[in-house]
């Protein structure tokens, strides 16, 4: 094991370097092979779903090919019309009606609270911070039943309010935590200079902190967007009338109604359902990576 260059002739070390280089090359080839193979296995189901959406129903499970032998838009047309009196477009809009307020409220409340935590001396600050971390780890199912009863008392059942109202109060500790971490890493000299120039804390927040926080704010917005679009349990509990269904409930409905026979329709709508998320992710993937690593590595 003890390979040393000491006492080796030049020729010997030359051949050693060559052997090492060859080993490097083989190593790289093996790595690419592993990465490609794993990547293919992982993404194949997604590609298959997109292609299945264009296949007629009888072809979906009879061939493994990603290219439809018989190109058909029936899945999209019938799927879009759904078995209900509404089109799938309606369910899309419904989703937006609570996802957008959710994202906006989360960003505003989380930034304000994170600013308070990161820049101010607060009574019992340590205690509040511990509760913040604790809420990240708290299983939400323990809150579910009383929250349901609260919103029932307030007459908010079958509306989107229960889904986004709590976001106005920075209830998702993860985002506050992420912003605090980011703020702590920012230099404060700009703020100090502005303070000397007579800015009050509100102006500091709006004119200096928010612009510097922009990448982290975008990360928060993106994560909240994805999580809210994917959320299923929330709408399942609170939304009961079909006219208010978001995509998640509509997809579950379609698979229940057809009992999993009209796969081309179901997979076509499932494909459409994930397109916005994929597009947003591909455009803004750096924000995702930065957001998740700033919370993770520093935390």
């Amino acid at each position: 094991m003890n390979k040393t260059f000491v006492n080796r002739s030049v020729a010997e070390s030359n051949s050693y370097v060559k052997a090492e280089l060859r080993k490097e090359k083989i190593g790289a080839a093996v790595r690419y092979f592993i990465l490609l193979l794993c990547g293919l296995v992982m993404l194949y189901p997604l590609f298959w779903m997109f292609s299945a959406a264009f296949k007629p129903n009888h072809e979906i499970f009879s061939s493994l090919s990603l290219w439809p032998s018989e190109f058909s838009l029936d899945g999209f047309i019938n799927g879009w019309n759904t078995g209900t009196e509404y089109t799938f477009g309606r369910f899309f809009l419904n989703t937006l009606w609570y996802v957008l307020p959710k994202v906006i409220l989360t960003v505003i409340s989380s930034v304000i609270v994170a600013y308070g935590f990161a820049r101010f001396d607060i009574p019992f600050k340590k205690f509040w911070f511990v509760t913040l971390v604790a809420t990240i780890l708290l299983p939400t199912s323990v809150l579910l039943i009383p929250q349901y009863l609260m919103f029932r008392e307030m007459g908010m059942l079958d509306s989107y309010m229960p889904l986004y109202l709590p976001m106005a109060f920075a209830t998702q500790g993860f985002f506050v935590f992420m912003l605090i971490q980011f703020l702590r890493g920012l230099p404060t000299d700009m703020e100090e200079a502005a303070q000397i120039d007579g800015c009050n804390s509100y102006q500091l927040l709006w004119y200096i902190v928010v612009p510097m926080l922009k990448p982290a704010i975008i990360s928060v917005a993106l994560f909240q967007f994805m999580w809210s679009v994917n959320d299923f349990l929330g709408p399942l509990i609170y939304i009961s009338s079909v006219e208010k269904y978001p995509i998640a409930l509509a997809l579950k409905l379609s698979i229940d109604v057809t009992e999993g026979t009209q796969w081309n329709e179901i997979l076509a709508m499932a494909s459409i359902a994930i397109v916005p998320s994929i597009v947003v992710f591909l455009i803004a993937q750096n924000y995702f990576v930065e957001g998740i690593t700033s919370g993770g590595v520093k935390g």
Partner: protein
Amino acid sequence: MYENRRLGLAYISPYIIGLLVFTAFPFLASLVISFTDYDLINAPEYIGLDNYRNMISDDTFYKSMSVTFAYVFLTIPLKLAFALFIAFVLNFKLRGIKFFRTAYYIPSILGSSVAIAVLWRAIFSLDGLLNNFLGVFGVEAISWLGEPVFAMFSVTLLRVWQFGSAMVIFLAALQSVPQSQYEAAMIDGASKWQMFTKITVPLITPVIFFNFIMQTTQAFQEFTAPFVITGGGPAESTYLFSLYIYDTAFKYFDLGYGSALAWVLFLAVAVFTAISFKSSKYWVFYSGDKGGK
């Protein structure tokens, strides 16, 4: 940085209100409700510890609890191992690292959606994609969602499939390991594997711990995948605890028992997390300061 304590309190006041109204109050309220018999129609009736006593003779409770722990213990090691392995391979300054990172991350973005759960049903159903694929090799159709062990496997696989987010965190941690450490080890003649186990892993234990905690708390709460793919079946083999709580409270409207179940889950998770944090003292190394965050 600013001395004005009252102003600071004002800035975090939305959080304090939210904490009291939407977290602390419901948290305690569910404990109170767990001591009652409540069906939403009649007024709640105090029954003491009856709900908790009933659990002792409730077979579904044991089944659901053991299924949940099995699910967590299966998914987390697999997910973290995959995440660390792929991050390790990606960390060899390969070309196209960004492309692979993107490809591996996509399942984490989509994985918890109903759309993907639906896709999973299409893959694992009796005439589904997987059986078709295996049929090419002459394997007879397997009832993936009809056999308890296979159903658990299918649901587990969906979570493991989403290892990308953990991988991205691992990758960032690997990239922050100082190159000089490896160079020193190389001169001493260490193999790649030795470098990985003796240098890399100890240096990133805080990140392994972070991923472990975040992933387990999420796994304990999994709901969508079993609800959509298997409905908890067959024979309650994928009846995760969150499904049991949901059914009890929102299908059978037994809110008292549902709350008691939720509290037991909370206590189980709390104990598990506490043990994890205690154990971290022995295997998590924080460089520089002792203890860390």
